[in-house]
C-alpha cells in the first residue's frame, strides 16, 4: 500500500515545456501511467508518440479518465492551471511550479475550501511510491526503493538526501511526499501524517522540516495526540540568521516559532526522534526500528 498515488494513478500532465517534458520522460521511465497531456497549441499531437495532447483539462479527463494532475506550467500561468484542475474535479493536483505570486496562492487556498480536491505544493518535488513504480513530480526514481518508511518534507533536495540515507541504511519507502517550500500551500505536514497513520504499509515516518512558520509545531501537536507510529525528524536551518529569507519563500525566521531550535523542541516534546542533520536520518531510523 501507499498514500496518494499507486498503480491506479492515471496522470495528466499540464505544461509540457522544457522542464515539463524532461520530467515527463523521467516519470514514464520510472513506470508512471501518464494518460494525457495539456499544453496550448499541441492538441491532436502526441507526447513521445503515445500520450495524447488536449487543449483543456476537462477534455483530457473526459477522454482519458485521468484522476491525478501534475502542473509544470510557468508561475505567471500556474494559478489558472490550478483553478482549471480544481474545477475539473481531479482528486489530487501536484503543482511543481516555483515562484507563484503569494496573492494567487491566497486566492487558490480560499477557493479550495469545500472542494473535493487535494492540492500538493506548489514549489514541491511531488510524490513517489516505489512499490507501484509511480511518481508524480521530480523526485529521482533511481534513489528510492520499496519499503515501510513514509517520508514527508518541506524541501525538495533535502528529501532526496533523506531518502538516500534511508536506502544506505537498508530502509525502503512506502511513499515519499514533498509538501513544498512556499509559506502558503495546499497540503500540510498534518494532512500527510494522517494518511501515513492510516496506511498499513507505513511502519515509521521521516519528517523533514525547516525554519520559518509554525507548520512543524502543528505537526508536533498532531503527532502527540493522534499518531501511533514512530516519527524521526530533522529541521534544516539551525545556522540561518534571523530575518533573512533562505531561498524558500517560507524559510525565514520572523518569530520564536520560526527558529529551528523551537521546532526541534516541539517535536522532541511530542516524542519524535529528532536528529541534528539529515545525514543521521538513516542511522536513527535503524536505531528506532530495531
Amino acid at each position, binding site marked *: 500500500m501507499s498514500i496518494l498515488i499507486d498503480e491506479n494513478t492515471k496522470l495528466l500532465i499540464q505544461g509540457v515545456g522544457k522542464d515539463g517534458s524532461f520530467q515527463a520522460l523521467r516519470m514514464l521511465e520510472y513506470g508512471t501511467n501518464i494518460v494525457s497531456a495539456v499544453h496550448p497549441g499541441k492538441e491532436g499531437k502526441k507526447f513521445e508518440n503515445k500520450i495524447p495532447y488536449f487543449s483543456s483539462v476537462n477534455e483530457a479527463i473526459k477522454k482519458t479518465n485521468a484522476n491525478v494532475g501534475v502542473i509544470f506550467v510557468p508561475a505567471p500561468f500556474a494559478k489558472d492551471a490550478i483553478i482549471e484542475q480544481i474545477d475539473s474535479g481531479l482528486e489530487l493536483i501536484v503543482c511543481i511550479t516555483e515562484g507563484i505570486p503569494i*496573492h494567487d496562492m491566497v486566492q487558490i487556498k480560499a477557493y479550495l475550501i469545500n472542494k473535493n480536491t487535494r492540492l500538493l505544493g506548489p514549489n514541491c518535488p511531488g510524490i513517489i511510491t516505489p512499490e507501484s513504480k509511480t511518481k508524480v513530480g521530480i523526485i529521482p526514481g533511481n534513489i528510492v526503493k520499496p519499503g515501510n518508511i513514509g517520508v514527508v518534507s518541506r524541501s525538495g533536495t*533535502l528529501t532526496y538526501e533523506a531518502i538516500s540515507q534511508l536506502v544506505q541504511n537498508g530502509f525502503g519507502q512506502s511513499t515519499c511526499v514533498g509538501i513544498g517550500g512556499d509559506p502558503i500551500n495546499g497540503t500540510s505536514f498534518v494532512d500527510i501524517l494522517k494518511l501515513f497513520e492510516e496506511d498499513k504499509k507505513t511502519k515509521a515516518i521521516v519528517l523533514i522540516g525547516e525554519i520559518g512558520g509554525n507548520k512543524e509545531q502543528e505537526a508536533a501537536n498532531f503527532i502527540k495526540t493522534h499518531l501511533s507510529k514512530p516519527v524521526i525528524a*530533522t529541521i534544516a536551518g539551525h545556522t540561518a540568521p534571523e530575518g533573512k529569507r533562505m*531561498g524558500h519563500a517560507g524559510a525565514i525566521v520572523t518569530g520564536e516559532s520560526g527558529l529551528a531550535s523551537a521546532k526541534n523542541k516541539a517535536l522532541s516534546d511530542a516524542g519524535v526522534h529528532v536528529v541534528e542533520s539529515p545525514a543521521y536520518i538513516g542511522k536513527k531510523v535503524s536505531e528506532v526500528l530495531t
Partner: protein
Amino acid sequence: MNLHEYQSKQLLSDYNIPTPNGYVISSLELVKKYIAEFENSAVIKAQVHTGGRGKAGGVKMVTSEIEAYNFAENLLGKNLVTHQTGSKGIKVNQILIEEASKIEREIYLSIIIDNTVSSPVIITSIEGGMDIEDVSKLMPEKIKTTICSPLLGISNYKIRQICKDLEIPENLKNEFSQIVLSLYKLFIKNDCTLIEINPLVITKDEKIIALDAKINIDDDAVFRHPSLKKLEDKSQMSPLEALTNKYDLSYVKLEKGKVGCMVNGAGLAMATMDLTKWAGAEPANFLDIGGSANEEKIIAAFKIIIEDKDVEIILVNLFAGIARADVVATGIVKASKETSSKIPLVVVMRGTNSEEGLSILNNSNLDIISASDLEHAAIILKEKISGGK
C-alpha cells in the same frame, strides 16, 4: 521588492490616501527653496532601503533654513549606517523634504499576508509612532488584527470594528474608513506583501495623514506590474546583491565563514550549512542555485562565493532533480578556469545525470575531493579544516 518611502507615498496618493506635502531631492540646491515653501518647518528623511533610519540619524525635524541645509548636506551622497546595513552603510542618493504636521494622535496601520491564516490581515494599534515589535512586547493588548476574506475582500463591518478599536472620532469615521478601503485595494491590486503606515496621524486640524509609509511588493509578482518594476532602485544594492539578483540566485552571506557552500535546493542548502557547522567549521554563505540552473548561472554562483575572501574551501552539494548534475559540473570547471581559482572543492553529487557530472569534474584539473554523501563530506571537511589550522 522594497519601495522607497517617497515611492510608497506616491502610491498612497494614487489611491487618494493623504500624505504630507513634500519633495524628493537629490541636490542640495533645492533645500532652500522647499524649506522656504514650508515656512521653516519641515522633516527631512533619507531615502534608503533599510530599517532603523530614525535611530541612525537619517530623519530630522528642522525649523530653520540653516538647520535644514546642514542636515541635508550631511546626508546626501553619504553612506548611512543603521543596525541593519552592516558597517559600510547604505548610500543616500535622495532625501525627502516634507511639510511638518501638527500631530494630535498617532495610529499604527498595516496590511500583511498572514501565512498561518492564508489571508490578508490588517494590523492596527492605537499606539502609533513606535516600533510595532515594541508595542507587541510591551502592550500586546493594544494590537488588533483583522482577518480579511481573500475572495470577498474587507467587509464594512470589519472596518467599523477597526474604527471602534482605534477610537476614531465620529466626524472622521467616513474618511478613515475610505482610507482603509483604499489601502486594502492598493494592497491587493499591487501584489503587496506589506503596507505599513506608522504613524498614520490625526492632525490638530482634524486631517488624517500618512506620515510614514513602507510598501513591499511580492518579487514573484513584480512581472505583472511593469510600472512598479520601474521603481526598483538598484543603486541601493551591493554589487554582490546586484549579481545574485541578475542571475536569480538565492544567496545570503554569513560573517567570517570559511566554507563556501554551493547547493541546489533551499532545504539542502540550509542542511549543508548546518552540517558544516557541526563538522566544526563556519559556513560562509547560503547559496541555492535553484532548480533550472544553467552554466552561466553556475559560473556566476562560483564567482559570488569566491568574492568572499574568507572562503578557504568550497562545499558543493548537489542532489539533482530538475537541475542536471552535468550542467553544474561543466559550469564549475569553466568558472574555476576563468577565475584561476585555487580553492579546493569538496563535492557531493547525486541524482539526475550525477555520473556524468562527477566524471566531468574528475576529468578536470581542479583540486577536487569527491564525497559519497553528506556525512562523508563532513568528515572530509573536518580533516581539511584541522589540517589547515
